[in-house]
């Protein structure tokens, strides 16, 4: 501090102590909630992963799953899967699918939280505003025209570019005066989704039967056929996206004061915006590339987390990743076991739950904002 900085406030010591204890109580309560949430989500994730690993057409008991993992780690404890195809199914079908669920769910939830922060609007979400469809269109182009310019990475690269272009477009169209109003955002989303839907339809029309099938599968969203080779491709995208988003967490907190005040507190708002738009596109691409459009995860998860831990972005982003992963593992397990011998579309399930939730949020936002502003 320089010599010009003014001295301490003139106030009674008692008031200062009172404020300190009130503040300490707020912090204590919040810390307890955060610890409980992390612990709860961590345990739930492990349990959900074990249940998901064991259930399906070929049922594998938990002790055999644990035994199989132990053997892979070089520990000779517990039984191996008794079914002849058990080991193969576990490691080449189920675990890769669970890993994909973690990546997709976590990425979508973090993308949603980051998007809400940068738009200053709690209703922003990749599928609502059309970023997911934009990414899907670009990925569909790669499939229909058989683009292989980057090997296994071709589809994710296209999805990223599509997502980036759409995010920039939505951002430019829906903002005025540094904020996006709910109506503008939702209407922009409708327009973008409509155009993306038309382009997808066109691609289906020009594509051959196989391409057509792939596109339909995307619109529904599914983790079916998640192989390790796909996981290896999207994991780095998700990792980079999540790490960069976390690095921006504090600036996102300040941004909630509005762009002007954030600038006064030293945030380079323009740069933050660009970085986060790229992050959202990256995460959406990671989720969409192989699994299609899984809607509303980025909306529902951050909201539920905020209710528990408050809006601070550092905790919000971490907890959203964990909760998003958990939600998707559970949803996917339901999708593939609810009806025997059938893989229900995952995107359909999340929309079935997320749609009404979105509606409820919309009504609540209208009430608290005193209008559609």
């Amino acid at each position, binding site marked *: *501090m*320089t*010599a*010009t*900085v*003014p*001295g*301490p*406030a*003139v*106030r*009674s010591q008692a*008031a*200062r102590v*009172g*404020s*300190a204890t*009130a*503040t300490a*109580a*707020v912090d204590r*309560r919040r810390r307890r909630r955060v610890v409980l949430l992390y612990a709860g989500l961590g345990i739930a994730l492990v349990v959900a992963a074990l249940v998901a690993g064991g259930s399906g057409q070929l049922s594998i008991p938990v002790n055999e799953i644990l035994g199989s993992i132990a053997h892979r780690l070089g520990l000779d404890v517990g039984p191996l899967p008794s079914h002849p195809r058990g080991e193969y199914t576990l490691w080449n079908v189920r675990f890769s699918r669970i890993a994909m669920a973690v990546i997709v769910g976590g990425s979508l939830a973090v993308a949603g939280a980051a998007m809400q*922060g940068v738009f*200053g*609007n*709690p209703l922003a979400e990749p599928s609502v505003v059309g970023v997911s469809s934009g990414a899907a269109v670009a990925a569909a182009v790669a499939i229909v025209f058989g683009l292989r310019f980057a090997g296994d990475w071709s589809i994710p690269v296209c999805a990223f570019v599509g997502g980036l272009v759409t995010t920039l477009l939505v951002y430019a169209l829906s903002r005025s005066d540094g904020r996006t109003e709910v109506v503008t955002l939702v209407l922009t989303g409708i327009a973008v989704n409509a155009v993306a839907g038309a382009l997808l339809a066109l691609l289906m029309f020009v594509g051959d039967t196989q391409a057509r099938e792939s596109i339909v599968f995307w619109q529904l969203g599914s983790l079916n056929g998640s192989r390790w080779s796909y996981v290896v491709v999207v994991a780095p995208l998700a990792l980079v996206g999540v790490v960069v988003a976390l690095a921006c967490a*504090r600036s996102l*907190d*300040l*941004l*909630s*004061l*509005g762009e*002007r*005040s954030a*600038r*006064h*507190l*030293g*945030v*380079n708002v323009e740069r933050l915006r660009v970085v986060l738009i790229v992050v959202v596109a990256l995460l959406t691409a990671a989720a969409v590339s192989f699994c299609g459009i899984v809607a509303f995860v980025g909306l529902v998860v951050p909201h539920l987390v*905020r209710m528990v831990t*408050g*809006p*601070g972005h550092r905790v919000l982003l971490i907890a959203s990743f964990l909760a998003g992963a958990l939600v998707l593992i559970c949803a996917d397990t339901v999708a593939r076991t609810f009806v025997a011998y059938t893989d229900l579309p995952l995107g359909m399930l999340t929309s079935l739950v997320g749609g009404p939730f979105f509606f409820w949020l919309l009504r609540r936002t209208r009430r608290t904002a005193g209008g559609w502003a």
Partner: protein
Amino acid sequence: MTANAPALLAQDVTLSFGRRPVLDAVDLEVRRREVLALVGPNGAGKSTLLSVLAGDLAPDRGEVLLEGRPLADWRLREMSRRRAVLTQEHKISFPFPTVDVVRMGRAPWRGLPEEDHDEQVVAEAMATADIDHLAGQPFGLLSGGEKGRTSFARVLAQRTGVLLLDEPTAALDIGHQETVLAHARTQAAAGAAVVVVLHDLSLAAAWSDRVALLHHGRVTAEGAPREVFTAPLLSLVYDHPIDVLAHPGTGELLVLPDRRSLMSREETA
């Protein structure tokens, strides 16, 4: 930093919004140990001038120097440790508790030795703004005045040598108006340079060392309140009959609208 340079210096600042001129060749010096009040009628350019001083708006012509260096040469983070800005609007996108909003004022000091005093500085700022009891309340649910005081606390927590306050007394009750401005005085006495946009001319007369009277984007008059606040000048600038008198007890300057002409007109009607 240059020791002799004024805290803030606006030179020949000119700015138009579209074809509407808002500021016209404004020169203004903001000195340390002084409260400077910007006054003037609606649309005179007070808030715009404050935005230019804060670096939010770049003028079409002229420039602003902070501690002798043009604003454009400052890094945002560095600047945020030198000057704090209280805006007129107090909004938030997410339901942060009040204490977290005040803590945001400490963001510029992250990673520096001053960070160690964060909690103490925040507690002091909250006590000064009288918002201790609101610590755990979500900022969005506070009343207008409470939001204003919370933002004021956030600005104080920033611990800067330059304070730019845009209508800090708006929506405050009379008691809190006095506390906020008294504290601005305390800051100035301790060495800070304070610029405050005010509508209440009696408040400006009571708490500022110097006033700048803006009219149509120009500084019409500048000086001690007693020199600037004269009935003929104010009546002209505000286009309304205004009386300036001394308080019978304390001799303080009171600026009041002269309602006699208005009332007699109504009586005759």
